[in-house]
């Protein structure tokens, strides 16, 4: 059985309040991907639609999208693992292709978070955890990640200032990414300026500047077997390693609070499958839904030892010119986080980097890239390693 390659990537601009319906939003990412792959819809054997359904009014969006995108009568289905849905989509597409069942599969991620009112969204936010035992206490995503931040600070002496540096980096690249929802710069000083919204507390110790931007957006990744990939594509990017893991949704079922076990486990699996180590990664996209999440990713993926993630950002090693560039497209923090579309957008960034097509964001001659995509508060973890 041959290799599995990525032959096309695309995404919509990530925006606040997309002025169209969800099928039209999906079209934007699909169109860019199809133009990139330079194939026709007849060449695609199946589609996987990835999203968090609680934001949709449309029931079972897969059929609606497949028709709108010209992907009928081929099989289509819906896949959900919260914020890591489209990385799980890549994993599923890989297995469909590797098994020989299909030659070419499209992984389409989307989220129109503005599809529902902000009150409805707030209400859903409250149900983002274990609804029987934890949501009745009034929990929110930022507060859970804040608990990880607090534990990391207590164990390793990490500070809110260290976390602010991660946001400053994200905003550096968000400014040069035309797809990003947040295009403005963020300075370190804003975090201590009471006049700046960045300094406002959300859930201690996290502030507004530590939290990612909600957005509407779509993404698309087209996966093909080796034969088709070589026939269709001049620069296929190969899927070298895939890892995935889960853990208890409620915190009492967990043992680690200074990192995410799902990221450690998915990372180990992906490294093993690819036959590489953290040192071999030339460019990475990590799931920075909050600044602390990127800090933990450094450590969980082996870019830094536990507790030493702060040194990596302080020394700017995760900037474009550093030893391990991370989220040089603005990350979720500045590019935005349309849940189901996020993984596909991360994969797109790495594919463009490996092809040398990342423009102003291009790091120097990368050969191997990594995508770390987390669902929920470390509930699901996917790590994908891609290579030229």
């Amino acid at each position, binding site marked *: 059985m041959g290799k599995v390659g990525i032959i096309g990537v695309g995404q919509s601009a990530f925006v606040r309040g997309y002025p169209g319906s969800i099928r039209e939003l999906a079209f934007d990412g699909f169109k860019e991907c199809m133009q990139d792959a330079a194939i026709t819809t007849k060449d695609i054997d199946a589609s996987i639609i990835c999203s968090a359904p609680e934001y949709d009014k449309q029931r079972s969006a897969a059929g609606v999208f497949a028709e709108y995108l010209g992907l009928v009568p081929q099989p289509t289905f819906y896949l959900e693992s919260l914020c890591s849905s489209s990385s799980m989509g890549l994993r599923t597409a890989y297995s469909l292709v590797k098994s020989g069942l299909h030659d070419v599969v499209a992984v389409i991620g989307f989220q129109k978070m503005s599809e529902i009112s902000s009150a409805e969204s707030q209400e859903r936010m409250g149900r983002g955890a274990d609804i029987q035992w934890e949501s*009745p206490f009034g929990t929110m995503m930022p507060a859970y990640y804040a608990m990880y931040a607090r*534990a990391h600070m207590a164990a390793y002496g990490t500070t809110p200032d260290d976390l602010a540096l991660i946001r400053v980096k994200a905003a550096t690249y968000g400014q040069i990414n035309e797809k990003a929802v947040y295009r403005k710069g963020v300075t370190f000083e804003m975090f201590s300026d009471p006049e700046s919204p960045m300094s406002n507390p959300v859930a201690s110790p996290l502030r507004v500047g530590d939290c990612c931007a909600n957005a509407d957006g779509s993404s698309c990744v087209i996966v093909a077997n080796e034969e088709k990939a070589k026939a269709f594509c001049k620069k296929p990017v190969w899927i070298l390693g895939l890892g995935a893991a889960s853990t208890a949704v409620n915190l009492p079922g967990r043992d680690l609070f200074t990192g995410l076990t799902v990221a450690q486990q998915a990372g180990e699996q992906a490294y093993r499958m690819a036959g590489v180590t953290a040192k071999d990664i030339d460019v990475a996209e990590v799931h920075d839904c909050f600044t602390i999440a990127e800090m933990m990713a450094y450590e969980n993926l082996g870019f830094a030892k536990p507790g030493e993630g702060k040194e990596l950002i302080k020394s700017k090693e995760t900037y474009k010119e550093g030893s391990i560039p991370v989220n040089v497209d603005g990350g979720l923090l500045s590019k935005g986080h349309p849940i189901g579309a996020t993984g596909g957008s991360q994969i797109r960034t790495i594919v463009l980097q490996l092809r040398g097509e990342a423009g102003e964001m291009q790091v120097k001659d990368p050969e191997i890239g990594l995508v770390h995509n987390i669902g929920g508060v470390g509930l699901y973890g996917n790590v994908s390693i891609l290579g030229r």
Partner: protein
Amino acid sequence: MGKKKKEVDDRFKKFGTVSFTSITKVNDFIDYLEKGKVMASKCKDCGLVFFPPRADCYQCLTSNMEWIEVSGTGKLVSYSKLEFAPVGFGDDLPYAIALLDYGDYKVFGRIADGVPEEEIAVGMDMKTVANELPNGQLNYVFQKA
């Protein structure tokens, strides 16, 4: 018509500021809370202790559970004080969610309103206490041991 309506055991709707669950096999948790007790469940077959409590043991594939009281003190693993809240929780602000480690199990909940933030530190000993909320709902909170 005229048929007697089947009684629904929805005691769990009393749990927390806003409950999202009403029917569960561990509804007795609420009765214990009313009596001032916070309970975990223990599998009679293998001895595993579960918090949050559960009706079924995945290890034994049995449902042979007994209630045990969450007693003594746990160590504060982490906490966060919220400045924003989901719909329905705004009147409670600000409040802190937290996790205590009792060794055999951990308990997720809220820190009692009266505990000043400057006295809260990761690693400190706290105890879990049943609590009635201003809206008549029940939960439990962590107090300094």
